[in-house]
């Protein structure tokens, strides 16, 4: 049908907590093409991580549940898939994740080799020995020095950057079509960040996989992504090519977000740091209508009554009655 590796349509994910239901992902739609990098941007609590977990089928149990919409990977519907199938056929094989914190994302009591080999063994049904040989190659590919020696080492013997490479090797060992990187750089030094982003670029180039890059860091997103989707309170408020978005943010929230980041080359509106007034809404008690309405300077009555749909507007999608 298309060259899209992933199409997400009206995805709704709820967290059923004791105190109530959190609509963590609320009617989210986006797509990623092969070889494309989509940045998913938002503050913490905006639902971007939940979106990533929804794609992986790793919502917290028993609270998290996909209650609506569809996730299509290469045309295959994932949202109704059971856990066993998800684990056997999707995770690590079709979709993989590079997680937030390299320091804690590797199991401290297993050797690097066995951890990298685990998905290979799982998805290719290789013998332990072949899997270990392949794991060595993978480590080589992510430029871990002397991998044959390092496979018998343990995570605590690796630096943070090296661990992140190991994680990348583990995630991409089975050449997934979609890679989800959830804040992979936030815990790293800036120089290491750059190296890792290079690596991600390289891996993506090699495999032609789509990459969903989840971050709150607008700068990182700008340097790595082709397109960007901005999330606020569980909904995507704006999707655009990265250059367009940074050049001319359309949604009031996006504008506020960009304005609040001090950046070289982009002038802030009033010449000083800006912060969006108010606070994000209580996820347990989202307001009627547009979730951003209480903080929006363009707010109209209608915004409090109806949720603005995400509407295509000349190559970018915006969910705002006023901007449309």
């Amino acid at each position, binding site marked *: 049908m298309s060259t899209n590796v992933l199409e997400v349509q009206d995805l709704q994910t709820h967290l059923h907590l004791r105190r109530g239901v959190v609509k963590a992902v609320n009617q989210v739609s986006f797509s990623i093409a092969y070889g494309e990098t989509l940045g998913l941007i938002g503050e913490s609590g905006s639902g971007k991580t939940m979106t990533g977990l929804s794609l*992986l089928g*790793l919502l917290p149990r028993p609270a998290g549940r996909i209650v609506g919409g569809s996730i299509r990977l290469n045309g295959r519907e994932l949202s109704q898939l059971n*856990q*066993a199938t*998800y*684990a*056997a*056929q*999707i*995770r*690590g*094989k079709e979709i*993989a*994740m590079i*997680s*937030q*914190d390299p320091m*804690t*994302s*590797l*199991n*401290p*009591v*297993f*050797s690097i080799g066995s*951890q990298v080999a*685990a*998905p290979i063994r*799982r*998805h290719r049904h290789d013998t332990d020995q072949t899997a270990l040989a392949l794991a060595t190659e993978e480590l080589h590919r992510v430029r871990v020095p002397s991998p044959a020696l390092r496979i018998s080492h*343990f995570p*605590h*013997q690796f630096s943070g950057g090296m661990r992140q490479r190991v*994680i990348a090797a*583990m*995630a991409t*060992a*089975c050449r997934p079509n979609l890679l*989800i990187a959830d804040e992979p750089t936030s815990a790293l030094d800036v120089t290491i960040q750059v190296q890792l982003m290079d690596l991600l670029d390289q891996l993506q180039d090699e495999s032609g996989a789509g990459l969903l890059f989840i971050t709150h860091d607008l700068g990182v997103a700008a340097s790595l992504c082709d397109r960007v989707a901005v999330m606020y309170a569980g909904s995507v408020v704006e999707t655009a090519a990265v250059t367009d978005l940074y050049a001319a943010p359309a949604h009031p929230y996006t504008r506020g977000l960009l304005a609040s980041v001090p950046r070289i080359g982009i002038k802030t509106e009033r010449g000083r740091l800006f912060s969006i007034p108010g606070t994000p809404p209580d996820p347990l008690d989202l307001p009627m209508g547009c979730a951003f309405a209480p903080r929006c300077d363009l707010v109209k009555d209608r915004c409090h009554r109806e949720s603005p749909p995400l509407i295509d507007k000349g190559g970018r999608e915006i969910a705002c009655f006023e901007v449309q």
Partner: protein
Amino acid sequence: MARYLFSRLWQGLIAILGAVLIVFIAQRLAGDPLALLLPMDASEADFEALRVELGLDQPLLVQFFRFLQSVLVGDFGYSYQWQTPALDLILDRLPATLELAVAGLLFAIVLAIPLGVFSALYQDSWVDRVAKVFAMLGQAIPSFWIGLLLILFFAVTLNWLPAYGRGNLSHLVLPAIALGWYPVAAMTRTLRSAMLDILQSDYIRMARSVGLSERAIIWKYALRNAAVPLATMIGVYFANMLGGAFVVEVVFAWPGVGRTVVEAVFNRDFPVVQAGVILSAVVFVLVNLLVDLSYGLIDPRIRHGR
């Protein structure tokens, strides 16, 4: 790791020394040590000779070191009752006690692992509640009563299992349960909270994100991590198990160190009692060293001295 082990070894030695000291003090409380050391056909002259030979006129400290010396070479004297070396009597029965303690421990672990894991996986479910009830009863029911109830139920009423003595596998079942009952509670709790932490961890999410099966994740990835606190528990409880084994041995007429020492107490066979007490302290220290070593096997961070 080496330094850590060395310090643990040192601590263990101090502890054994302490045990020997306590035995020495108790021995002095028992009365004339000559009477305890000499054979029954000793004459007054023998007494005098031995008094000089043992330096009993010398300061207590000197006497203590002499005692320590004989303990170090395994000389606890002869059993009054059996005229054989006291240590041999105890060592003969040590395998039976260790068999019981290990079986009890295995029972506890085999029960605690699924209880702990499932109560962590399904918090507040019936498994969790069953585990809680287990924990509550485990700590409030003494092992000797459990033992008697097991005999009453499985041996007397149902006639399924033998109630007394050592023999084949079936003889081991009831005593092992009676002994393993107590630590189940603590182990389950430890494992539960460890698993709860571990299952929330990033590396488990990572393992899931590459598609590993849930079974492998829980029973291999997570459990291996939980093994460290569990091993600590096992070390802590082994003292309990040894002491508990003494009681359980009496309940089930198990021919181990405990029953032998209890009989020796009633027979005022002091050399056997002191050999039993010192040996149990030594075994306790050794087991704890083994547990320390096992940390290294389980957790490479400890192995590499972090």
